[in-house]
């Protein structure tokens, strides 16, 4: 479904991604871990199409498309979804109106009729059963004044509504209390089918107890330096990044 080849990207002439390789097949769950500043969010942003990041080398194929040639909205319409690490507050844009606009744009692309108000409300109610989110958030301005955890939950609620083919969750677990974490994880598991895929960016093994990844990748200084199964996350939790990064530095010096 997603095939990243030697992807390099810079911001303000500083190279941040230094040759990422990653294959994601449908039905898979991938976890990406790595120290602060190693390039995880940058990778997510490049996939979503943020223009500040200049791709200097490499290719990204997504569902037979050259992803890097597509506008951000086209990527979303093709089923790519990024749950932001820091969702932006947009005063004056009503959350419900936004959700309906977004959903109908995507439905139109899929050749589906736009949802009218009543059907949309029904769908929202349904999705609220999957992701338990405070109703009053929906009638407020988008993310404005939402608490850290509410913002993260709102992202996952959007994800539940839009039913993406490939979801990238950037530290969705950070800032969630344990109950919210369970809710989010249960939601993600419910949405998971053999036809879609999830990339989970996280610092903590605890989320991976609830959403079990098929692969864990460790990104360091703009490169994936180790890939393993779920047990890799456990090792990280115990030993920290030092043992891998030392190994990596030793290897590259050899």
């Amino acid at each position, binding site marked *: 479904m997603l095939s990243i080849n030697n992807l390099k990207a810079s911001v303000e002439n500083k190279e941040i991604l230094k040759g990422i390789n990653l294959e994601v097949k449908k039905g898979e769950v991938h976890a990406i871990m790595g120290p602060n500043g190693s390039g995880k969010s940058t990778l997510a942003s490049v996939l*979503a199409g943020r223009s500040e990041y200049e791709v200097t080398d490499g290719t990204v194929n997504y569902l037979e498309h050259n992803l890097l040639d597509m506008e951000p909205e086209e990527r*979303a319409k093709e089923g790519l979804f990024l749950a932001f690490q820091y969702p932006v507050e947009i005063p*004056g844009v009503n959350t419900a109106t936004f959700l309906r606009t977004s959903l109908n*744009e995507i439905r139109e692309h899929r050749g589906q009729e736009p949802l009218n108000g009543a059907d949309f409300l029904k769908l929202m109610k349904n999705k609220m059963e999957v992701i338990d989110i405070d109703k009053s958030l929906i009638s407020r301005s988008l993310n404005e004044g939402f608490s850290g955890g509410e913002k993260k939950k709102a992202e996952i609620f*959007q994800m539940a509504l*839009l039913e993406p083919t490939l979801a990238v969750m950037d530290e969705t677990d950070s800032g969630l209390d344990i109950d919210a974490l369970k809710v989010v994880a249960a939601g993600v598991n419910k949405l998971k089918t053999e036809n879609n895929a999830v990339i989970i960016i996280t610092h903590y093994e605890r989320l991976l107890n609830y959403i079990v990844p098929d692969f864990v990748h460790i990104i360091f200084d703009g490169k994936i330096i180790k890939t393993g199964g779920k047990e890799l996350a456990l090792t990280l939790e115990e030993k920290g990044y030092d043992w891998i990064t030392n190994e990596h530095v030793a290897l590259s010096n050899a």
Partner: protein
Amino acid sequence: MATPCEADLNNALAGGVEQYFQIANFEIHQDEIFLENSDRYIMLRKSAIAAFETLGIPSRMSEEWKYTNVAKALKRAWVQFPLKTEKLTENDIRSCLIPGLDAHILVFLNGIRVPFTESDSNHEVVRDFGEFISNSNVSPMDNESDAFDALNLAFANDGAIINIPDNSVLDKPLYLLYISSHDDNLFVQNRNVIDIGKNSEATIIEARISLSSNNDFQVFSNNVTEIRCANNSNLDHYQFQIKGQSTTASINKYLVKQEADSTYTSTNINLGGQLVRNNVEVVHEGEGCETNLSGLYHLISDQHLDNHTLIDHKMPNCNSNELYIGILDDHSTGVFNGKVLVRKDAQKTNAFQSNKNILLTDDAKMNAKPQLEIYADDVKCSHGATTGQMNQEALFYLRSRGISKKLAQTMLMEAFMKEVLDKIKIEELKNFLTNILELRLNISH
């Protein structure tokens, strides 16, 4: 009895443009528009002409007109009364009404009051223009220092006198509709007086709408409105201007005197006009006044809008709030000049001012100049002015949810403008203006 006429107006303007003013052989013509002119009226007008002669049309050398080239807009031969005024059809007027709004309606066509069948009988609140000039206390107040005020007093065509007696509430909004429709270069001047009595309340909506389809001709309107809000009164005052993007220039001056415990709220929505200058000058004559001034603008092509405000805090315990926001597209230009003067005695003043602009192109320009002059020590004042691009992070967020760039931009612009639109308390007016705005912002869903 005689009053100045068109030839004098053009003489005056021509002289003003040239910066040396000559009305040497000032011929005073008989003019049948003003039949009952009192001596005082003639005298006032003559002295106004003299004042204008001295002042001349302000050039860009003048600090107050630094960014607005009004002299250029005036370089034409103007007619004050079009030879043939097309009679407006009922439909023409209807197209300018606010759907669903029940209001008292006064229509001015090309500066002259015309009957509007439906509600023309019930204007005890409105008196005659000549009577006003003769009897009102129009001090030649500011026109000693303001050329356009002087020019208005000298040559004003017509106007409305609105008198809300003490202890009364105007039952429904008063809609003052100024329509221009002309096959000439037309110079229009209205002079209004709004007097809100003690403990009284009123809502007044003023609309300036150009129905001209002929782009060869311009209309320049120079208007003055004097407003008094008596003790404990409340005036909700809306003004909007639409259409006439390449054919209309206007200068609108509002002189507001507030007495104790009165509230004056002005909301100005500017979408039309090629060159527009709004001057709002508010003086607090008593304690406990509240002044709320808001402005909203969306400018395209080469539109130019200049909002000048002055709030003169002369008395203690008064509040003022100003919020002007706008979006400038293409090579449009804007000016915000907001002066807040807090005098020595005006303790416990709260004065807030904010001006926010989004520039959509590199060619659009905004000049924002907040001025706070504070001479009292126990006050809370703040001001802020921002001019920038649309929030790129927000734009990306919306696009990353499948919303096209164009629609996302529209959503963000609407969100930005909402802050002022939400201040419109009359639902019908709010919907009317929101629809016009949405059309302008190219919404197609």
